């Protein structure tokens, strides 16, 4: 870096970091304050097998009770308050776009150490973990910070462009393609944390989506852009959400899942997208286990690294996706056959949103608590000169909680509760959404959900690499 661009970079950052910090801090602080984590070493000596069996039994019994009683929670939604919309989404989106550009610049010009570069930190801990986590509680936050909506609207206005090129007819398939590429980049490619590599990938993706959305219209983002689709789905589980109508904005509240019950049926591509989300999370957990490392011939105590297992993990990812699709398809078909035809697979699939959201939260909790600290440190003092732009005292990034045997069971308990809660909710939703079918028709999906409970908890409690 030359003296000139270093100076520019520093000045640029002083403004940029403060803007970014406000949002990121709000998202990260509550989680970091929990400060506990889950090293497998301690979890391995807990009787996790008993916990997993108890969870599986609980999910199964819930289904049995639901089938016997026939009475399910109504999950009504309530309006908490109603106001005028303060900030138009196009404006906040445009601001998010500017921040995105700042991050890309940081990725190219900032520190090479990924844990000191806000491109890597903000994307992987903020956008990829904190935003969906917060969205699963407070509703779709992505709609405010989607970096395409505003620029696409402006571009279409300037170009005088109306109508589209027919992309919407493709349903969610483009998003599935982009999501698959992203998963491969995240889990299998050699350097997803490298700031410059990540910045380049993000910029290329942004440009591609921007071009397509300008051609087709900003509404296409809801179907074709995978982050928008994924975070939109995750936010449907939230007990709090905002509904807008014209200039009015209503803050709504209801049981988790209340929104899901009011969603329209899914088309095939949306169902496949949800299956992909489940498969991606499953494979990400699986690929770290000693079981998988042994299967692909790696020594889990000293794995060679990503470069040695690109093909094995690519095949594993695709196989997991195929197995997930096959299991869901078989469960739905069997359910339909047992129901005599009234089974609504296109609605029942919505219940798996709860599982995907719950597993996303449980799976990434530790990463949020570790990498999240680097994010805070970098926002607080981007140049490591002792600055305190967020007002935080200087602090060392600290992973002591990873070996604290007193708090570890608490964290595992949190993950356990999230996974179990998500599956119980999924069972309830599937009973509500399947339509008026006889109890036996629920059996295949209930078996699938019990299996997924066991798998999810096992992935979090078995020996893992790293």
């Amino acid at each position: 870096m030359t003296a000139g661009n270093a100076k520019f970079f520093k000045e640029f950052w002083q403004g940029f970091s403060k803007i970014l910090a406000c949002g990121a801090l709000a998202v990260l602080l509550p989680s970091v304050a929990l400060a506990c984590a889950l090293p497998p070493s301690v979890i391995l000596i807990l009787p996790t097998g008993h916990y997993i069996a108890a969870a599986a039994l609980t999910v199964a019994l819930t289904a049995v009770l639901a089938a016997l009683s026939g009475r399910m929670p109504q999950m009504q939604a309530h309006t908490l308050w109603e106001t005028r919309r303060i900030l138009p989404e196009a404006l906040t989106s445009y601001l998010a776009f500017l921040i995105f550009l700042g991050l890309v610049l940081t990725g190219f010009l900032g520190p090479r150490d990924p844990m000191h570069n806000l491109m890597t930190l903000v994307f992987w801990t903020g956008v990829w973990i904190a935003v969906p986590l917060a969205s699963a509680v407070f509703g779709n936050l992505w709609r405010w910070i989607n970096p395409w909506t505003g620029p696409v609207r402006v571009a279409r206005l300037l170009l005088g462009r109306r109508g589209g090129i027919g992309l919407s007819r493709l349903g969610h398939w483009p998003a599935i393609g982009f999501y698959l590429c992203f998963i491969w980049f995240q889990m299998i490619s050699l350097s997803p944390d490298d700031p410059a590599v990540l910045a380049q990938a993000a910029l290329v993706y942004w440009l591609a989506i921007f071009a397509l959305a300008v051609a087709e219209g900003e509404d296409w983002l809801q179907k074709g852009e995978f982050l928008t689709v994924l975070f939109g789905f995750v936010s449907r589980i939230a007990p709090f959400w905002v509904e807008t109508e014209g200039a009015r904005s209503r803050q709504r509240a209801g049981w988790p899942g209340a929104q899901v019950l009011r969603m329209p049926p899914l088309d095939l591509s949306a169902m496949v997208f949800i299956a992909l989300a489940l498969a991606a999370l499953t494979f990400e957990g699986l690929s770290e286990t000693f079981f998988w490392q042994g299967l692909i011939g790696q020594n889990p105590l000293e794995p060679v690294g990503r470069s040695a297992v690109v093909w094995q993990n690519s095949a594993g990812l695709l196989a997991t996706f195929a197995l997930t699709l096959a299991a869901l398809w078989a469960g739905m078909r069997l359910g339909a056959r047992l129901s005599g035809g009234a089974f609504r697979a296109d609605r029942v699939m919505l219940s798996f949103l709860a599982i995907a959201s719950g597993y996303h939260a449980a799976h990434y909790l530790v990463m949020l608590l570790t990498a999240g600290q680097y994010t805070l440190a970098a926002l607080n003092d981007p140049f490591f000169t002792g600055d305190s732009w967020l007002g935080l005292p200087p602090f060392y990034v600290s992973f002591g909680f990873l070996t604290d045997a007193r708090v570890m069971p608490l964290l595992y308990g949190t993950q356990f509760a999230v996974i179990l809660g998500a599956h119980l909710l999924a069972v309830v939703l599937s009973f509500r959404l399947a339509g008026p079918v006889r109890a036996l028709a629920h059996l295949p999906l209930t078996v699938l959900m019990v299996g997924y409970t066991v798998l999810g908890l096992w992935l979090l409690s078995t020996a893992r690499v790293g």
Partner: protein
Amino acid sequence: MTTTSLFTPSRRRVLQGMGAGLATAALPGHVWGQAAPLKIGFQLHRTGIGAAYGRWYERTTTAAAAAINAAGGIAGRQVEILYEDDATDPKRGAEVVEKLAGPSGCDLIMGTLFSHVVMGAAPRAGELKIPYLVCSEGYHVASGALNRWVLQPGITDVRAQISTMAPWVASTLGKKVTMVFPDYAFGHDHRDFFTTAIAAQGGEVIAQIAIPPTETSFTRYFPQIPAETEVLYHVMVGPAVLTFVKELGEFYGTGAKPALFGFIDSLEAVDTASPGLEFLEGSHFWEGHCRAKPADAGEAETAYRAAVGVDDNGASVSDAKDVSTYAHMFSCWETLYFIKQAVEASGYAGPADRQKLVEAMEAVTDLPEGAERPQGPMRFDGKKHQAFGVQNISKMEGGKLVRVHQTTIEEGLYDNDTDYTAMSF
């Protein structure tokens, strides 16, 4: 004991630890407006299996650079450390070497820890003719398997570490040894070097129990331990270590048991007072550098801990639970000071002088204890490109490791045919 939480550490203590110039080491040299900085590329295991070590290697190196810069730098030039993540991957490692040697314009590269990454990246350093100083403790350098540009001046290699344990184990704990080790290169080094070394002391390894690396329960292996075993030598690593200790405790119960001897690699970055480790009370461990500050520690040890931000128990000053990789990370500190010594001795001015710099490194012999070497004195063997230092044996007392013995440098020396000085550049 006073503890501080993540967000309320004492500002003074943290700042003390970080040092006023802590990260100015990472800033571009023009900040000082003086001679161009000496750029040292650090191949960091920031992500991947080595990340737990990487975090502390970075912290130690940053502290060392700050200390050197505060004292005037190296040959009057400030030191700039450029950290580049290799994801603990040999292919990435080679790419990182290319990047640091090329676009980043580094004068030399240091810091690699994991052996397989060293083996993957070192050949590229040789091709690019850039000094590559590893902090790995592997025998790969001294074995002669690498090239003229690769040196390990900051930490004793594992062959010497293991061999120096044998005299004390044989004379103090017993001569009939059963070894339990993970069944891959790391465990095999222990198996081979210790078996030879204990035989030289009149002892004998009466059983070698190799545990598959994917194993997470060990109870079924314990009956293989011969009843006449006097010393159980264990070097299990990975997430199942706690399970290993727990199950070993259950196997022996409160009855008679052999003396236990292990390597701290099993519990590096883990609080030895953790619940579940009680069975290790009274057992002994090798430590490269004692995590609990010895009672007779000198000023250098105190200053080193303060600079890195580590307390007297080897934990972070901001979190008593955050135990450092203390037995290994001094290698970064000492490697940086070795670089300083060699750069100043060689009159190194830029990349054109790299060969001269390596020759100056090879000429180094004695590395006395002091602020530059808080772990203790070392001797550098220019032919092997390897440093040899004192080793420590500590006893677990009340959940704390207390040093009971220190080996001499001479005990760790060995002969082999390696002579890098006879190799061409």
